[in-house]
């Protein structure tokens, strides 16, 4: 692969680009999906190709190529450089791409590589989870189980001299259960993702995920729609993670700075929350779904302390944003596949634990709502507005957990919500997800401890 990369890079430089980089990817995935005990999707794929970027005077061009021959690579290297040159006169700012050089070749060692596990064994696992979910309760009317595994080898080379080869193994299991009682229909959705081989799916929780999802759907049958209003909200670790991700993490992605598209623009080094608030993004955590040792530009990653003691201290950088903002690159550039250019993204994002006992936190909440789990969320960093929806929750009255409620949404402003965090518990949990930005989905983890936000608008029916 070295010679293919070199051919494209040299062609791009020869055509007049000042910086060229390339990602050559070979990815094999399996997805097995079962509904009500029947196979709905048995799917295998191979993604094979290269994504090439050329840069000159502040203008970027990107092209993808699946013709992995020397001639094919030379041709696309030349054409992508020409595309960058064609738009160089219309850029707002001239700058150069600089950055540290890394070279490494890292194989990932896992106990059970996916290619060594037979399709039959993988299908048995899916059958088991789907059966558990169906047999949990007679009110379960539909079950859906999805197993996915992805092995990828990625080769990143750039014209500064970086050359990184690494691998990744990501398994995932999802259980979705619909339960019904009369006209009342409820859905339980749970997923577990990790980094590692098939052995990650043989642990206790993934082996019982169908039961857990069914229990959630059945419990939701006796939930009520929450009354909309302004509440003191206690977030569980999963929802807290979503809050950190949506209400803060996206706004800390450094490509928002040159774009003037974040409310945090003037806040670097400033106070954005209480002094016991610490928010981190850490791709170096062992065996997590959002972990990687080098990013998609070949930069070595490290833990990012986005907020430390309530102060915004660090952003999520690509080579471009670090060059333009004159900050240290920290390996946050990610791409969904070779078909997309890398963008600054989160990895494993969380609130660091505090010192409250979580039970005491509930007891201390007079009239509020405990929000748990997560349906979805999104944010508009330029406006500072975010929204996310909990899967379920419980009313809290006089420090006691009461009626279960469902589909509760929370909306707010980034700069207004963090200062309203008044208590952070000492527990910690991460949940697996997929984050979308610019049409690209990447695997990530979000989480933290239980934490309380006071007086926020909560939408109900």
């Amino acid at each position, binding site marked *: 692969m070295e010679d293919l990369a070199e051919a494209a890079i040299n062609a791009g430089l020869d055509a007049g680009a000042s910086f060229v980089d390339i990602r050559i990817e070979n990815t094999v995935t399996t997805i097995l999906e079962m509904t009500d005990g029947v196979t709905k999707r048995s799917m295998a794929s191979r993604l094979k190709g290269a994504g090439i970027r050329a840069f000159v005077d502040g203008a970027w061009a990107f092209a993808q190529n*699946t013709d992995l021959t020397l001639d094919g690579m030379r041709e696309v290297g030349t054409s992508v450089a020409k595309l960058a040159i064609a738009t160089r006169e219309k850029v707002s700012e001239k700058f150069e791409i600089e950055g540290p050089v890394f070279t490494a070749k890292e194989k990932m060692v896992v106990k059970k590589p996916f290619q060594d596990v037979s399709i039959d064994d993988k299908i048995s696992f899916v059958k088991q989870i789907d059966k558990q979910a169906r047999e949990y309760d007679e009110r379960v009317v539909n079950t859906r189980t999805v197993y996915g595994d992805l092995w990828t080898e990625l080769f990143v080379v750039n014209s500064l001299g970086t050359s990184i080869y690494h691998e990744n193994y990501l398994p995932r299991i999802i259980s979705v259960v619909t339960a019904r009682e009369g006209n009342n229909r409820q859905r339980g959705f749970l997923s577990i993702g990790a980094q590692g081989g098939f052995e990650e799916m043989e642990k206790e929780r993934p082996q019982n995920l169908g039961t857990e999802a069914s229990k959630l759907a059945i419990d939701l049958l006796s939930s009520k729609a929450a009354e909309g209003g302004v509440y003191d909200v206690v977030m569980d670790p999963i929802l807290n993670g979503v809050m950190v991700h949506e209400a803060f993490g996206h706004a800390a992605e450094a490509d928002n700075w040159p774009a003037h598209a974040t409310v945090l623009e003037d806040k670097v080094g400033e106070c954005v929350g209480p002094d016991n608030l610490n928010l981190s993004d850490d791709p170096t955590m062992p065996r997590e779904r959002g972990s990687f040792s080098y990013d998609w530009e070949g930069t070595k990653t490290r833990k990012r302390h986005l907020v430390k003691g309530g102060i915004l201290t660090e952003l999520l950088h690509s080579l471009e944003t670090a060059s333009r903002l004159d900050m240290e690159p920290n390996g946050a550039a990610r791409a969904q596949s070779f078909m997309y250019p890398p963008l600054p993204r989160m990895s494993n994002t969380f609130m660091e634990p505090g010192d409250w006992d979580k039970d005491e936190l509930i007891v201390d909440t007079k009239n509020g709502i405990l929000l748990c789990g997560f349906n979805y969320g999104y944010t508009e960093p330029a406006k500072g507005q975010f929204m996310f929806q909990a899967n379920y929750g419980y009313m809290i009255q006089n420090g006691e957990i009461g009626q279960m409620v469902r589909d509760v949404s929370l909306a707010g402003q980034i700069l207004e919500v963090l200062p309203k965090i008044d208590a952070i518990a000492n527990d910690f949990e991460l949940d697996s997800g997929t984050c979308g930005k610019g049409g690209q989905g990447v695997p990530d983890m979000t989480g933290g401890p239980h934490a309380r936000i006071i007086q926020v*608008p909560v939408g109900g029916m």
Partner: protein
Amino acid sequence: MKEQILDIADNAVKLATKFGADQAEAYTSFTRSFSIEVENNAIKSATEKRDGGCGIRAVVGKKIGFAYVTTLEENDIKEAVEQAVALANASVADPDFVSLPSYEGSYPSVEGLFDKDVKDLTSEEAADIVVRGVDSTLENIKNIKVATEALLTSNSGVRAIANSLGISQASESTLIFMYSAPAIKTDDDQTTSYEFQISRRLDEIDPEYIGYKAAQNVLGNLGGKSIEGGELPVIFAPLAASGIIGFGFGGAVNAEEVQYGRSYISDAFGDQIAGEVLEITDEGLLTAGISSRPFDAEGYPSQRTEIIGSGVLKNLLHNSYTANKDKVDNTGNASRPGYSGLPSISPSNFVVTPGNGSLDDLVDEVGRGIVCLNTGDRPNMTTGDLSAMVMEGHYFENGEIKHPVKSTLIGINMRDVLKRVTLVGSDVKATFSIISPSIAIDSAKITSG
């Protein structure tokens, strides 16, 4: 190009039968897409993609396997075919599977899906169009700090579908999309907005209009306030209707979701589910429609299907699997994410029949309430519960827009959204998921703070 892509599909089908599949289907496509991205009022990047690939569905008895590859190389396709057959052999039989579709009649023709000007668009021309849009946004925002993002993307592609029951079809189409999204900042406020157009034809993209309208929209968003909550009427502008009706209702009439009991309208077939003024059809053959096509993603002919007439739920959307299972006619609504996925079901052009009046007329008639211009939210498809943030919207009183709203949520069940539709405007706009005017409902729970 069309013949070549179709040949590859035909050959993959033959290979799958040779490897032991009882039935087989291949979906091949080749797309060239081109995009220019603007950031902070100037060009940031240009992208050119050539994406070709092949997806194979192999059937052994009632067991199905699928594999795809991101190239059109013979050896890669052979590997995918082998895998699809192997996966079919390892799967659990689906008793409800009857057969892949077959069709021997003539196919409808749909005009206006291909525009040579889009196919031939150069990077310089594309850059010029998007810059004109951005300039128009900047000209219409005076004395305020502004950073505009914009994007122009054009696609031109061929897709082919072949199966072992004789389906063998290919079609060529183009699509062009452009938006301008200014962010403005004053001493005490910061806000954004957005305007877009999407079309099959280059000459229907008007960058000056997009730029002008984006500027109007963002200026109108300054000074957002929260309001006193309660039960209030809501008017969904076309973009908000796109999310709530297009995705939120379009996804509920998916026959597969209904068959599994996962849709909030599962028991409502033939019932009065909506206000009498609401009429929705799925129009697969609309001239130049964004989602028009002569045949669906399984190669079955497209058609027009009435969904809601006088408020009554008339039909569901089917692909070959769900139609066979219910023993009803296939409505030709198989959809898939290109070569990389199995068919599911989605609307083609989901069309809300226009009524009377502009958005201003609806505001005047309703009197007091919220205009929701845009929301990113979707209902819970099983319960129908919807809790939607007003991403952009206004509060109105005495028939006049008073101010934008912030941190405001609309809470309502989808069944009530449909039932409470009282007015349908005539301000039709095409979005990715719907062709709809503004729609007013008489009440929803509003929370703001």
